[in-house]
């Protein structure tokens, strides 16, 4: 990225005693977690965990909250907790499904409420920048972000910019996202690359399509967790999860606790070897030469993506 000329609208970090963090809160783990972690770390760990956080609205209804937005707010608190737990258990990268393009069909009240909540949470994240820098966690946002309000896009661009060099953990938030939209956008880049003469039809392979997705810089997804007992993917990371371990938990998202996450990791370990063997059978082998041939196209694509992000930061 080029030099950023940030505006005065950037949120400044806050460090005073009275500041209550929301993203990085020190919470205690259960007493048995020390032994549990030691046991788990003796086997393979999922590097990249994807989570469909389902059940906030049902939680709000069963607990008689005033509105479903309060359920989503409870869901956010739960998210920050689960992100901590994933780091504790050794997952470097976590991707969460926060808002689908299909969710725009919900009531205006709920959609506007969610957008406002996202704005407040991202402003808070910028205020907690010191902790972000200390933990060196990189934030990325996946989805058709142009469908979101401009203010939200600017906040997300700012967060991505300030964390772009962090490498000790990765948190990816999917907003205005569907997997089919992501794959179609990836194919559109490839089509434009062919039209520009940067690619030929024979250069197109699974590796290239993966390198054009929003998740192009991510680890492969190892474990997909879905809460609330629903057994479907709901248009989430269809390409990336085509052969990962699927774990469905029959609890609502705000009720998902450390023991549920731990069981998911244990189940991943039990299925690790057969899934790896299957991956070996079904994955396409692409030569290094073929990958090098596509490098000019990939550089052009990165620059094109960054142009829009820079325009948000500079506006």
């Amino acid at each position, binding site marked *: 990225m080029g030099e950023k000329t940030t505006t005065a609208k950037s949120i400044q970090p806050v460090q005073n005693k009275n500041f209550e963090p929301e993203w990085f809160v020190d919470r205690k783990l259960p007493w048995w977690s020390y032994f549990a972690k030691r046991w788990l770390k003796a086997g393979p760990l999922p590097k990249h965990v994807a989570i469909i956080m389902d059940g906030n609205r049902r939680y709000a209804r069963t607990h008689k909250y005033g509105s479903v937005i309060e359920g989503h707010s409870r869901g956010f608190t739960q998210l920050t907790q689960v992100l901590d737990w994933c780091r504790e258990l050794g997952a470097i990268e976590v991707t969460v499904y926060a808002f*689908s*393009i*299909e*969710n725009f*069909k*919900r009531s205006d009240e709920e959609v506007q409420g969610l957008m406002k909540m996202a704005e407040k949470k991202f402003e808070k994240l910028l205020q907690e920048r010191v902790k972000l820098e200390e933990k060196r966690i990189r934030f990325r946002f996946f989805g058709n972000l142009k469908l979101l309000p401009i203010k939200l896009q600017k906040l997300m661009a700012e967060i991505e910019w300030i964390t772009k060099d962090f490498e000790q953990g990765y948190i990816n938030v999917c907003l205005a996202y*569907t*997997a*089919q*939209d992501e*794959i*179609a956008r990836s*194919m*559109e880049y*490839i*089509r434009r690359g*062919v*039209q520009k003469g940067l*690619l030929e*039809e024979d250069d*197109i*392979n*699974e590796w290239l*399509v993966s390198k054009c997705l929003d998740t192009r810089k991510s680890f492969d997804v190892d474990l997909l967790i879905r809460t609330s007992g*629903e*057994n*479907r*993917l*709901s*248009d989430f990371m*269809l*390409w990336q*999860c*085509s*052969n*990962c*371990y*699927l*774990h469905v938990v029959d609890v609502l998202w705000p009720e998902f606790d450390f023991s549920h996450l731990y069981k998911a990791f244990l*189940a991943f370990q039990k*299925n690790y070897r*057969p*899934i790896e063997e*299957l991956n070996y*059978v*079904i994955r*396409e082998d692409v030569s290094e030469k073929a990958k090098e041939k596509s490098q000019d196209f990939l550089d052009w694509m990165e620059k094109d993506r960054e142009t829009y992000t820079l325009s948000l930061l500079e506006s």
Partner: protein
Amino acid sequence: MDGLGASHCYLRGPSDSLTVVEHCDKKLETSPILFVNYIFGFLLLLRTLLVFQPMPKKESPKLVIPKHMAVVFTDDAHVYLSCLIDIIAHSVFYGIEKLTFFDPWCILESRKYEITAELRKFFESRPNQRRILFNEESDGEATKALRVTILGSNDGRASLVRACKQLCHSTEEVSIASVYEKLATEHIQDPDFLLKVGNLNSLAGYPPWNLRITELLSISSFEVPNRVQDYEFLRFLQTYSSRDRRLGK
């Protein structure tokens, strides 16, 4: 009876009205009036029990038949021709319009024509109400046929790569609809319901694009490894029927 220590039990009577039966913990008194009251109470209880009808059972949800069902074998030990025959027969019976079979090792796909010949031979010798089309056969008749498609790992992500290769020459922007169109030419469509057979909890490379809102059900194996019983198949459909498909709303 003054209701001291009384508890109530609600039973549904024949006219669907509620009948209240009181039980009293009070010790039996020797007074004749109380004795008559107890006899009366006993007769009332007897009358209620004689005309008692149990609460009507909650009706099981209406059976919803998926238009397109996929069966994915994640354990190569479970891939039997007899299972395919049973599933096709049940699908014909229940009115399923499309069936897709998939295994990641291409056991089925590599023997597609041999399997299709066997299946065709089996079903042609039996009177069917519906025609069964296999793989790329075209449907020239007016009656609704059951289309059976056999896919392998070459149809997983690779199907999207093939679609991309076709779309890359177009002057029009790639859209979700255009990808669907390309996949449909290979008979790869969204299943409403996917039954995964085997202990591996993974989709094993099934065509990913088409699993957007597919309801998934995992079983480790069929009750009889090489057969799919009718009550078992009905149970799968009942599970599908009970799912709440919200479609993002």
